[in-house]
């Protein structure tokens, strides 16, 4: 509250009661304005979050009355080899997915950041997978990578390689998911980079050119440092999404073959809705949440050291 506001309030306070003062204050007005949103978010956001905390301390199948078991769900997680394996798979996926998308998108964004004939077409083409639904993407990749009838195997065989199992091979399925999701996410990252590239002031690039910098040097010394904030945002955003991978698995491999693509959230789903251990599943969700929180904090701390923000 500014000094003037305070003065106005005191002035009014002399004439009206305290209740009027509260009603008239700016913060009350503000809260009233946002109250519809607050109610909706509270009802559908905050309340379930609180309920799920409670759930994670229960043995609860959502059908029969729940029993309070304290930290037993969390303790059981520590000794669950399936959970450990799903964590390893999720980390492997994230470690592959995030750098590939980030570096790939940067390259594409630089390539698309020019004035060429038909550039709009190329940009649209790169962005198209983002607006394609996951299910459509999955069906397409299922057919492309079908071991018997897929076009990819047909090409491989023609080139003299042996046909691969892809989604049906326990050793390849997760990598196929990486390829599929990279394809789906690349356009999003490209747009972010493209916007950041176009935000680099033209005079800086001109100055670099006048100083005799080659194109590569100008990119390396001027453009790249200016992309820091965008890169940090992307890495955090992509990491969060990678750790929460589910849809793509659900519509392609369903965690298989032989659990090869059972990542954390898919395992959570299995626990909650296939074997009815909702308490255990919410405990997994909270461990995942803490993991994501920790990773994000670390990324932000590292980012603070390396990322350059223009004032």
């Amino acid at each position: 509250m500014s000094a003037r506001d305070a003065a106005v309030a005191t002035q009014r306070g002399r004439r009206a009661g305290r209740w009027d003062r509260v009603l008239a204050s700016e913060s009350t007005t503000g809260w009233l304005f946002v109250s519809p949103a607050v109610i909706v978010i509270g009802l559908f956001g905050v309340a379930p979050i609180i309920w799920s905390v409670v759930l994670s301390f229960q043995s609860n199948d959502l059908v029969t009355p729940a029993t309070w078991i304290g930290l037993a769900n969390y303790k059981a997680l520590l000794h669950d080899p399936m959970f450990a394996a799903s964590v390893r798979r999720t980390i492997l996926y994230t470690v592959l997915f995030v750098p590939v998308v980030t570096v790939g998108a940067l390259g594409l964004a630089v390539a698309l950041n020019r004035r060429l004939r038909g550039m709009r077409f190329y940009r649209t083409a790169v962005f198209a997978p983002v607006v394609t639904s996951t299910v459509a993407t999955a069906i397409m990749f299922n057919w492309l990578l079908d071991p018997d009838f897929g076009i990819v195997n047909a090409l491989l065989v023609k080139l003299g390689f042996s046909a691969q199992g892809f989604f049906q091979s326990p050793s390849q399925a997760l990598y196929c998911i990486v390829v599929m999701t990279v394809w789906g996410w690349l356009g999003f990252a490209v747009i972010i980079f493209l916007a950041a590239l176009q935000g680099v002031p033209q005079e800086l690039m001109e100055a670099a050119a006048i100083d005799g910098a080659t194109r590569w040097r100008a990119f390396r010394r001027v453009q790249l440092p200016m992309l820091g904030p965008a890169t940090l945002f992307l890495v955090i955003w992509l990491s969060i999404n990678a750790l929460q991978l589910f849809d793509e698995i659900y519509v392609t491999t369903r965690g298989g073959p032989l659990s090869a693509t059972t990542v954390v959230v898919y395992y959570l789903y299995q626990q909650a809705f296939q074997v009815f251990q909702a308490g255990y599943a919410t405990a997994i969700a909270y461990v995942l949440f803490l993991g994501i929180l920790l990773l994000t904090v670390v990324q932000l701390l590292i980012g603070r050291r390396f990322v350059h923000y223009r004032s």
Partner: protein
Amino acid sequence: MKLARTPERIRVRGAATLVLLAATVALVLLAALLAACGSSTSTSTSASPGGSGTVTLWHGDVDVERAALESMAAQYNGTNPPWKVQTVFSGNSDYALQKLLTAMAGGKAPDMMYQYGSSLPNLARSPKIVTIGDLIAKTPSYDWNDFYPAARLACTVNGKIKAVPSLIDNLCLVYNKKLFDQAGVSYPTAQWTWADFRAAAKKLTNASVKQYGWAYVADGSEDSVWRYLATLWQANGDLLNADNTKAAFDSPAGLASMTLLHDMAVVDKSVYLDTGNGNYMNLFNNGKIAMLWTGPWDMSTINKDVQYDVEILPADVVHASIAGPDSWIMVDNGADRVQGAWSFLQWFTSAKGHLEYAIKTGNLPIRESETKLPEYKQYLAKYPYAKVFVDNLNNVTKARPNIPQYPKISIALGQAVQGVLLGKLQPQQALDQASQQVDAILSAPM
């Protein structure tokens, strides 16, 4: 705000705030009212005993089945029952259990709902699921034993009837006659053994044109498991012991059936392994797969130009098949509503009511007496393939155990079947692993 604040302005702001406050309160009340309306779908109270109003039925039917269900409900409502029925499409039945659990947790469950048989043991543990057996006991005209055995078994949990049958199907051998003719293989017969089946599948496989003798859904889900159970029963094996306390499939019969899968998928390579996305049906339509083990639900997706026929499954010892019976469950939303819902289900699952529905949809009869009604001829005329499926219901003498642990058992067994089909596990190794897991699941406290 740049304007100077005079006391008058402040008074105006105060009034505006009050109006806003009133508006917000009104909004919240409206929201609460709407929510309340949503939860109690017209619980109109009338003077008549038993009450009247509308009971809701959630289902996952689309196309023909949805239209048939809606027309049956309209027909029922036309008789002016005190409780009318409102059908609500609640999405694909694959998610019916999740939907119902969520709805029950939120206190907004429907009065009746379509559920897969496999969901029942877990649902039955909820006190809110009506024990329909008690209602049947008071309704002698509702001849329970008239339902096919597999359907009755699927609705019974721990000796109590917790649901009534909504649909019953079973696996038969569906084959493409043209591919048999081309390969010079004689058509399957009701006397076929596993050896005949395997040899035919091998002859019908042609790697150069990517043609397969058989297809198997190898995604490790229940879809993988129940076909395996059919082979296990054909070899006269059992999944669990009699009192459902231990695995019984690590047996000569279990090994024989696992070996059949291994020999066909890995040795002969005569099996197209479907990843669970249903490609097998497209491939069958395109003449790339000669034989399927499938049920009536797939028949409407077979293209008109495919010349196919249906035969019962081959035997090792017996020609066993498996049924995937689904059911109608009832949720206790008050005694009056239960009575209203039960009146509808009684009518809808009577021999006459169901046969009428079956003629509309091609679903198999759920009661044996339906096949004795005069309209049954009309049914067979409309769905000629159905005769083998209906007769095959007599080959379904065993059912999956109706215990809450079954979903976990299914996952363990699914991994074993998938491992064998993909050549990653030897049959005995897969059985050892799975039976150890199943024993652990059964001995753990629920």
